[in-house]
């Protein structure tokens, strides 16, 4: 049984991935619970990707894109916002806390903000505990 919680982060190539990179080169420390997957745009993230991550054992998922209005593809993240506000509501309705899915807009210069978001998210999800969709023991 794994102990640590796992967070899957879908980061867009142009802003939030660059933000994470900046956090890295600035040697900012953040929790090692995050597994990053780089995508070209946050709107490339199909809600199915998020559901699959939960299914395969993620305890939290972060979808991050450029700041609104600064999307490399002009308007990609506006679609992202609608899609995931919908998914969050579906998750909550079936009893999966909405804090487990987080959508953030992080620019390439916000290494420090990236770090604090990951820290906050990790501690929030640690409080919620693991999400094991395969072994529900009915507690």
């Amino acid at each position, binding site marked *: 049984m794994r102990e640590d919680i796992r967070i899957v982060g879908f980061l867009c190539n142009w802003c939030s991935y660059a933000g994470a990179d900046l956090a890295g080169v600035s040697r900012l420390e953040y929790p090692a619970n995050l597994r990053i997957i780089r995508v070209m745009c946050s709107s490339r993230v199909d809600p199915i990707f998020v559901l699959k991550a939960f299914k395969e054992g993620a305890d939290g998922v972060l979808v991050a894109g450029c700041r609104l209005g600064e999307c490399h593809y002009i308007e990609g993240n506006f679609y992202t916002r609608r899609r995931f506000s*919908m998914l969050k509501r579906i998750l909550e*309705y079936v009893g999966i806390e909405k804090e487990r899915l987080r959508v953030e807009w992080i620019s390439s210069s916000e290494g420090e903000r990236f770090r604090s978001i990951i820290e906050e998210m990790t501690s929030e999800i640690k409080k919620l505990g693991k999400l094991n969709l395969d072994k529900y023991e*009915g507690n």
Partner: protein
Amino acid sequence: MKEIEIENELRRVVRRLFLEKRIDIFIGFEDSLNGVRPCFIKSVDEVDRLVWNKFCKNNLALYLLRFDCRVGIVAKGCDEGAIIELIKENQISRENLYIIGIPCNGIYSEDNKIYSVCKTCTRRNPLIADIIIGELVDEKDMTFDDLKEIEDMPIKDRFRFWIREFENCILCYACRNICPLCYCNECYLDRRDLIDLRERNLSDKIFFHLSRAIHLAGRCIECGECERACPMNIKLGKLFRKISKEVWELFEYKPGIGIEDKNPLITFDPKRDEEL
């Protein structure tokens, strides 16, 4: 108009459509051993097979995708809603279609109980039909009070509730196959690396249902076919009505109404989305 009068009028209209060579096939209902079932009428001699009554529950829009000719169809509110969505999604063309709309007061199961989706239906009257048979009925006010019971549970109880539902799912795919809007030739849910039918894990079942839920957001017209088709009596209606509720509350949008309306999930509006 009584059911039997509607049925007679329906046969008369369909007979005329065939005689005037305006359709190649007609989709309707016929008697079967345990009630009624969908049928496909191909010529004027078969028209007398057609029936119409409160047990005509199937959403006939499902069958439209099979035909590449001029089709006639009889439609309740929800059938018409599905037809509108299919036209919007470029799956069928309005020109090839002759719609006979029948205002609907709800459909009943074989043991004569009204289906729960019919109690909350707000789309009873034809909107785009070529001809309407029967008198228009009163539309009810929209309400989602039937979801309160689940919504008001503490989140842990809600999780338990849905796990108990999903746990019983045998992944037979009846709900997907019957859904008039689940027509994708290549469906995610057929990928065996995503859903392992040898294992049938709980996580696969949850994935199955939540994937369908998000795919049907802004498209599901609440016909209730998925719930009726389910051999395990899973409360799919309570899942899909919730999707409708959120789409309505977030975007003031209801699918199956206007052919020009755009699904809110394939568009955006920076101003109004600020609250999201």
